[in-house]
């Protein structure tokens, strides 16, 4: 018996969330006393590294284009397994439910814990836009876990995975016309550090300093809902209840008051820093560190201080 794990790559490079997925599968497999089988695209590079995180076997396959096609492949390759782990990336969120529907397995998405127990499987997951935590039980022979990236952590183990290739059929019901990707940008849901700004910045022309701060920290940039609604920033940067939910190690909010809908999208962040001119801004109640001050003075100073800190390291 094995716990299977779907390993996602991005143009051939393994995603950080994929190492986290293998770490998750290894923890689960240890509880069950079984091995870990990683399923990865045959165009991905550096796959032997998966062994260092607990993959006993690494099986490569030629992936279909659409989520459904990959779901069919993952389902057929993990037949008879004790469970399946998929990271909660955009693509992972598309395929995990399809695998569950095809296999009749129970699925927990938004999972934020490793198994609390295995018979029946119990995990914690975020619900009510991070305003609640649900403990869910999966009563099924083939439970599937999709976890929130960054919520579990990556654990290095010693080991070497045995690599082999398998043939798997998947049907593509969609035709891909075009893929446009902003290269060099850090994807928000997986970012370790997020720098986010709101209406306090007064206009889209002032985002330069936000991007500069993000640059120094290796962070992804984000924004509040009003800012994306008035078109200062794209919707894909909108963080909050109806936007993207993030849980980075560090979330820096600049000129965002902290409406309950915004907090719902960011409250899972490990450390929150808030910069706002209004000492009464509700965001300070949800923050770890706060500065009451003008963003136009504070942010450039913070950029300088962080540059000096990074240079000294």
């Amino acid at each position, binding site marked *: 018996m094995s716990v299977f794990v779907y390993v996602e790559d991005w143009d051939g490079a393994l995603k950080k969330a994929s190492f986290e997925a293998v770490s998750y599968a290894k923890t689960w497999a240890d509880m069950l006393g079984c091995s870990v089988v990683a399923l990865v695209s045959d165009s991905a590079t550096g796959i032997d590294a998966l062994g260092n995180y607990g993959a006993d076997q690494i099986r490569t396959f030629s992936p279909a284009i659409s989520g*459904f096609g990959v779901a069919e492949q993952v389902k057929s390759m993990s037949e008879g397994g004790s469970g399946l782990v998929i990271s909660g990336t955009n693509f992972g*969120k598309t395929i995990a439910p399809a695998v569950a529907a095809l296999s009749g397995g129970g699925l927990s998405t938004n999972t934020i814990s490793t198994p609390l127990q295995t018979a029946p499987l119990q995990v914690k997951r975020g619900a009510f836009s991070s305003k609640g935590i649900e403990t869910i039980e999966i009563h099924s022979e083939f439970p599937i876990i999709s976890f929130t990236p960054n919520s579990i952590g990556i654990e290095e183990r010693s080991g070497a995975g045995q690599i082999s290739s398998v043939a798997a059929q998947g049907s593509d019901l969609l035709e891909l016309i075009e893929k446009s990707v902003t290269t060099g940008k850090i994807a928000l849901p997986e970012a370790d550090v997020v720098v986010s700004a709101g209406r306090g910045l007064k206009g889209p022309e002032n985002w330069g300093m936000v991007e500069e701060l993000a640059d120094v920290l290796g962070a992804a940039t984000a924004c509040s809902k009003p800012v994306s609604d008035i078109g200062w920033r794209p919707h894909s940067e909108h963080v909050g209840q109806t936007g993207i939910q993030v849980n980075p190690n560090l979330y820096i909010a600049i000129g965002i008051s902290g409406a309950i809908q915004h907090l719902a999208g960011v409250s899972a962040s490990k450390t929150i820093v808030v910069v706002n001119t209004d000492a009464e801004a509700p965001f300070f*109640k949800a923050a770890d560190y706060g500065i009451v001050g003008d963003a136009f003075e504070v942010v450039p100073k913070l950029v300088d201080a962080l540059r000096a800190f990074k240079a000294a390291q």
Partner: protein
Amino acid sequence: MDILVCISHVPDTTAKINFTADGSSLDAAGVQFVINPYDEFGLTKALHIKEAQGGSITVLNVGGPETEPTLRKALAIGADKAIRINATPTDAITVAQNIKNHISANAYDLIICGQESIDYNGQQVPAMLAAMLRYPFVNACVGLELDGNTAKTKAEIDGGHATYSNALPMVIGGKKGLVEEKDLRIPNMRGIMSARSKPLGVEEPVAGAAPTKSATFEKPAGKAAVKMVAPDQIDELVRLLNEEAKAI
């Protein structure tokens, strides 16, 4: 064009969330329920399609009788008829099975779901439904154009966008971008009056064993009090982030 819009009945985005004393479920006392915001973008998109090319809009919810005001609101906004599948939606697979059965008995050209509901945040039902029907599926869909029987969609992917093409019928998991915030409609008096006489059918669920079950709900641990740093003490903030929070 016959469109099915799947609607969830969820606590308002500003609602304070509390759970019952035994942690078994949401404490609905004092909570206002609304159409799931993701579904509202989908419903508005359906109205745009119907206004441009004709057709019908059916809204569907899996839920108890207490969810009917939410369906009536969707009718007041402009849907033609509503279906309530009489089951408590506790497990995604069984919800998807119930919706699939309704679709199999009624022909729809397009099935619009919100990407996720803001209560359980499962983001499961749309993809499950599509897989059960073997219909094309686009998640995180932020654009939809129809040309006869062909749909061209735009979806968010990690770090960018993808565009797809496929023949109908299909399922989408939609979000803002399908239409904009300013396009959302508030029911007017005529809409509210006409919604009263529009059909709202109740269908009984097909029993299926639920593979998942909620054990308990709890609220996240509260944060410790915020540490304020003076705006001229930025170096101190950097020190705290490094030494105390270990965040940089």
